[in-house]
């Protein structure tokens, strides 16, 4: 079971556009964080940049494969061929997105630990991949693991807001809280496809908040 089976048919196409928008926003944040790393040599900026780059690539992969998936469904070929192509593209999109996105979250989670120990980083990445790829039910494990990681990341950003009382930090904490609920909705989409669309809208709200924060930062 992958994303193509979760999406309501009326949502086909909208998800491609939304994922492309998420990719652009995440890529913008990655670029700015990299610029700060080049200036300051602070590892936290490097990890933030790397995590948003991976997240951006994950959305690009998801968007491209979802687009190909929809194109194949609309092609004038036999139903059997249509179904086999759709399964292949849907699964490829899901696996590319899953691995890149969860690695992005793992890097972001590592940044919140405020440690530079390489071994801690490597063990987190290794455990993430092992938890995801070994044994069955990859789909369930992915959304569960992503929800757990996002929960811990949101917790860090909420603590950062409480400590700094900075309105911009509030926007980021709210954005990651919405992403957490968004991923929890994807998990629920197994039983009701409507949650897949709701999850995307929560993601959209989260990325709009990230973009608003970025605008306020640039505005000085």
């Amino acid at each position, binding site marked *: 079971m992958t994303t193509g089976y979760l999406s309501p048919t009326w949502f086909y196409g909208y998800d491609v556009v939304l994922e492309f928008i998420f990719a652009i926003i995440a890529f913008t944040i990655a670029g700015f964080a990299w610029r700060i790393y080049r200036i300051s040599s602070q590892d936290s*900026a490097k990890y*933030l940049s790397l995590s948003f780059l991976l997240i951006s690539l994950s959305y690009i992969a998801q968007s491209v494969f979802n687009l190909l998936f929809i194109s194949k469904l609309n092609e004038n070929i036999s139903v059997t061929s249509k179904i086999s192509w759709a399964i292949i593209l849907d699964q490829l999109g899901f696996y590319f997105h899953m691995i890149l996105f969860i690695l992005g979250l793992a890097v972001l989670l590592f940044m919140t630990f405020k440690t530079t120990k390489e071994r801690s980083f490597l063990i987190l990445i290794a455990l993430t991949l092992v938890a995801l790829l070994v044994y069955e039910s990859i789909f369930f494990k992915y959304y569960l693991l992503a929800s757990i990681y996002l929960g811990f990341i949101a917790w860090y950003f909420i603590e950062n807001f409480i400590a700094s009382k*900075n309105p911009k930090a509030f926007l980021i904490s709210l954005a990651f809280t919405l992403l957490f609920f968004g991923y929890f909705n994807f998990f629920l989409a197994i039983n009701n496809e409507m949650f897949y669309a709701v999850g995307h809208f929560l993601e959209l709200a989260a990325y709009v908040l990230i973009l608003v924060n970025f605008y306020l*930062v640039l505005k000085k």
Partner: protein
Amino acid sequence: MSSKRDRLEIINDMLSIIRDKGDRIKPTQIMYKANLSHQMLNDYMAELITKEFIIEKKDKAGKRTYTLTDKGYNFLKDYQMIRNFMQSYGLSE
């Protein structure tokens, strides 16, 4: 000046001191005004030169002075923006 500054704050303090001194300042003056140890001063000065934020000059007596580059001025101009971004993501070290 805060007792627990991160790298970005130290860089900003050093560049501000160089700018405020009319762009011709000796290393010892930077060290005292920026509240740095000798080792830290050397490390940061090397980094600022490598990143082309400052240039080193020698006067007739062979004494070293430092001047901000355009890149250094741009950093000072953008510092608050960079700081806001870092605070919103809790990026201080």
